[in-house]
């Protein structure tokens, strides 16, 4: 991987992705070997929006590489509250840290911020835009469970606002995949995303309103949460959300090998009874965040190249 920053999964080639996933697999196999890779290195955490798991997994990843973190803390307690621009904030924090992780409510925030800093910057979510480190752990989980080539994946739920979905869909175009997008009409993929996907060679994408039409063909079903606030009223939400929840009965039509993923947190879109089945991969997926983020930090902090 030869990049200074990680802003969007669109910037990544198949070779880039495989470099990261291979490194993550090495680290997962032998975490102790990575324990002193970046002793004394500091990672700056700039979370302008609340986050639990992304932030904690970055913190864990950095510490497991032998480094440490410095945290801007919440927006309320920072100088942002005083009206400082993001461009100024990152230029200041870059002086304290060897790499930065940024989550920000505005789309394009990470792309802009990266133009103001020389240290590696990792996008941990920019509004409805991109979330490429989530994508990398999703790809890692898919590869471990179903393989990334000759893959049929269904991506279901809120496809309009779900940034994890957009990033994942872009990244999957690097592989031999058939992508089915399942959502209510009002939460379909943004046309911008469809446009981009169609720009890729050999991309096979289909949009559906009902899971039943494709469920039996799927190797992976990636479920996302449909949020209440996307709907004008409670009734409408209940009606729509109910159609995109899965339980054991739903899965009667599914392949025995179906892998079910979810970026978490879930509310009720996956029934707890599925947790104990072989299908469930969402907790494993969340745990994969650590080795994958370790791999990304290792590669970026090493100047883009793994030590061979």
């Amino acid at each position: 991987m030869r990049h200074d920053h990680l802003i969007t999964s669109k910037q990544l080639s198949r070779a880039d992705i495989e470099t990261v996933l291979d490194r993550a697999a090495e680290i997962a196999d032998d975490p102790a070997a990575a324990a002193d890779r970046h002793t004394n290195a500091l990672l700056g955490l700039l979370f302008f929006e609340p986050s639990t798991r992304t932030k904690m997994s970055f913190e864990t990843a950095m510490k497991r590489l032998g480094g440490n973190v410095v945290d801007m803390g919440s927006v309320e307690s920072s100088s942002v509250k005083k009206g400082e621009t993001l461009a100024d904030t990152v230029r200041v924090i870059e002086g304290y840290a060897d790499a930065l992780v940024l989550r920000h409510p505005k789309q394009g925030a990470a792309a802009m911020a990266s133009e103001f800093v020389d240290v590696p910057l990792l996008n941990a979510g920019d509004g409805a835009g991109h979330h490429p480190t989530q994508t990398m752990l999703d790809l890692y989980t898919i590869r471990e469970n179903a393989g990334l080539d000759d893959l049929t994946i269904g991506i279901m739920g809120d496809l309009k606002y779900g940034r994890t979905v957009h990033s994942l869909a872009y990244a999957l175009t690097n592989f031999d995949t058939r992508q089915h997008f399942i959502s209510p009409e009002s939460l379909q993929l943004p046309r911008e995303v469809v446009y981009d996907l169609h720009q890729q060679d050999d991309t096979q994408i289909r949009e559906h309103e009902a899971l039943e039409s494709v469920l039996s063909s799927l190797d992976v079903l990636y479920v996302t949460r449909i949020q209440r606030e996307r709907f004008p009223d409670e009734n409408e939400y209940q009606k729509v959300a109910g159609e995109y929840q899965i339980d054991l009965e739903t899965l009667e039509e599914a392949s025995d090998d179906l892998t079910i993923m979810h970026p978490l947190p879930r509310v009720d879109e996956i029934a707890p009874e599925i947790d104990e089945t072989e299908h469930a991969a969402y907790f494993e997926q969340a745990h994969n965040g650590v080795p994958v983020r370790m791999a990304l930090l290792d590669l970026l902090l090493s100047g883009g190249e793994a030590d061979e």
Partner: protein
Amino acid sequence: MSDDHDHHDGNADHELRVSKIQDGTVIDHVRGGQALNVLAILGIDGGEGEEVSVGMNVPSDRLARKDIVKVEDRELSQDEVDVLSLIAPDASINIVRDYDVVEKHRVERPDVVEGVLSCPNADCITTDGEPVTSRFEVLQDGVRCSYCGTIVRAGIAELIDTN
């Protein structure tokens, strides 16, 4: 502002229009009604004392109705005029010196336009008071914000940043 006495058809009329300025640039064959947007893109508002003539919705052979913009004492560069392709794709540019057209060229679609348009996405970082210049990639049929990815196909002229 419009020259009332030369609104008849034909090449003679065209020659007449072009030959009217001594030195500067004539932007001809602008889509009818877009002349003020052309000036906005070029950052010309008359405030610097430039001598500017604008003809709007005059009859044209190539376009049913066209606008024409003449700017005295300023020769526009190719980069400057290429931005005009977004709103005036048929425009022709005449560089005039001592009443003669010394260069004539068409606008070409640039790959990127910077600092000209503002992103219509209220959630885009470029609309949030940051010290960043807007940047749009030019697509076949529209433009796309380099930061948030928003694609605009219709109404590009409304995005012209007049600040």
